[in-house]
């Protein structure tokens, strides 16, 4: 039985619940675990931070245990960090936790770039325009929504933000309008 073709309804933004019963979360396995190289990298980064901390702490002046200087506590913590990082490098040799970067990993990077852009533009032209742009990028390009949904929802979001933060609460967020 054929039905007359009709244009599909544009997807509503809110999906109605389909099933009444509890559905166990579709257990996707996640990206492949980060290999030993990633664990090594992570361990080295924290080790470097720890060593840096030790250096700075010593420069601050450690004092004596009875009269601790301002560098004493950071030194203790940094040494702890170094020790733990070394332990992690040993223990984590086999890899096995964490995740590998996938081919979609550029998306968070773009997201991060838009966020930094917002921070840069915020004091200059207020939050409305950067927020609108960010939202458009995220919805349309990173999220794959249609132009209409993206524009409508972005505008709605910015207006709502304005109403809440500026009109209702009277906060001091930089705003153009």
């Amino acid at each position, binding site marked *: 039985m054929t039905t007359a073709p009709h244009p599909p*309804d*544009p997807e509503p933004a809110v999906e109605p619940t389909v099933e009444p019963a509890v559905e166990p979360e579709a257990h996707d396995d996640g990206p492949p675990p980060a290999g030993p190289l990633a664990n090594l990298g992570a361990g080295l980064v924290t080790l470097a931070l720890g060593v840096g901390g030790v250096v700075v702490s010593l420069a601050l002046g450690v004092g004596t245990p009875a009269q601790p200087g301002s560098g004493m506590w950071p030194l203790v913590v940094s040494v702890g960090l170094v020790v733990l990082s070394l332990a992690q490098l040993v223990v984590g040799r086999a890899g096995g936790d964490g995740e590998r970067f996938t081919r979609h990993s550029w998306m968070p990077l773009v997201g991060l770039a838009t966020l930094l852009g917002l921070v840069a533009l915020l004091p200059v032209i*207020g939050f409305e325009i950067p927020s609108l742009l960010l939202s458009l990028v995220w919805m349309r390009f990173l999220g794959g929504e249609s132009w209409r949904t993206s524009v409508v929802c972005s505008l709605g979001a910015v*207006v709502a933000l304005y109403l809440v933060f500026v009109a209702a609460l009277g906060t001091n967020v930089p705003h*153009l*309008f």
Partner: protein
Amino acid sequence: MRLAHRRAVAGATAAVAALTLAACGGNVAGGTGGTEASSEFPSGPVTLTVGQDAGGSTDLIARALADGMSGDLGVSVPVVNRAGANGAVATQEVAGKPADGSNLVLLNASLITITPLAVSEDEAVSLDDVDVLKGLSQDDYVLVASKKSGFEDLDDLRAASGEVTYGTTGVGTGSQLAQAVLFAQAGIEGTSVPFDSGSPALTAVVGDQVQVATIQLGEAKPQIDAGNVVPLLAFSAERNQFLPDVPTAVEEGYDVPVSQYRALAAPKGLPEDVKARLVESVDAAVAEDAYTSFNENNLLTPHEISGEEVVEEWTALAEKYQDLTAEYDISLAE
């Protein structure tokens, strides 16, 4: 289908509404009607920035003042908290704004007179960066002892020299300076225990975790009245009206007048007429009953001197404190 349609209409209406709000004017630098003419001051809201967290005495003073000024100027005077580095962040921020009267900052004397003794040169804030409009009030420090310590006056404290622990409200504060200088002058040896602010220091002395501490009068008075702490002396130049029975350090023979003063300031280069108008509104605000009873409730002594006098006073104090710490070989930054 209809849902999306409705959403589109709603979105469009919202967009139109948002654009019409553009007439309201924003608060971005250069976004306000940065007019050449100070003919119509104030043309918009006047933002008062406070360098301390909301709820503290400086913040409350700012809000009380803003209330009164708003009534006189006829525009809103929102108070914005911008805590950081004892007010250095807020002061520097406001000092960098255009000097058109729409941005003010509430100054704490300690930032100018005492903090420079404890931090490096490039972090210290100088009065040269701002135009001081008017002095506001004086908040005195009082040296209190815990009940358990048994101290009743300075002599008791002197007798316990060597065993005394004293709480301060932080490094680079009037509390630290006053006690360090007093103890040096009186020959009392003690261990200074810094806390983060007046409240924990007061709690510590009430609970006898430290034996004495120097606290701002407004914070300490309820405990004094309840008998939980004993006031030993006050660090004001003259006897404080709220503590008439407590001797001052000066009376006891020690030259250590330390008080917290607050004043209103604006970025440097304010046009004369704007300045005059602002000073006028401050005068109107402090004359109101609401403000005077605020001062009384918070045990603040009015100190409404002109901007020039404030600069004189604070500069003299800064020098004095510098001399005192040099003379007694005291380093606030340890």
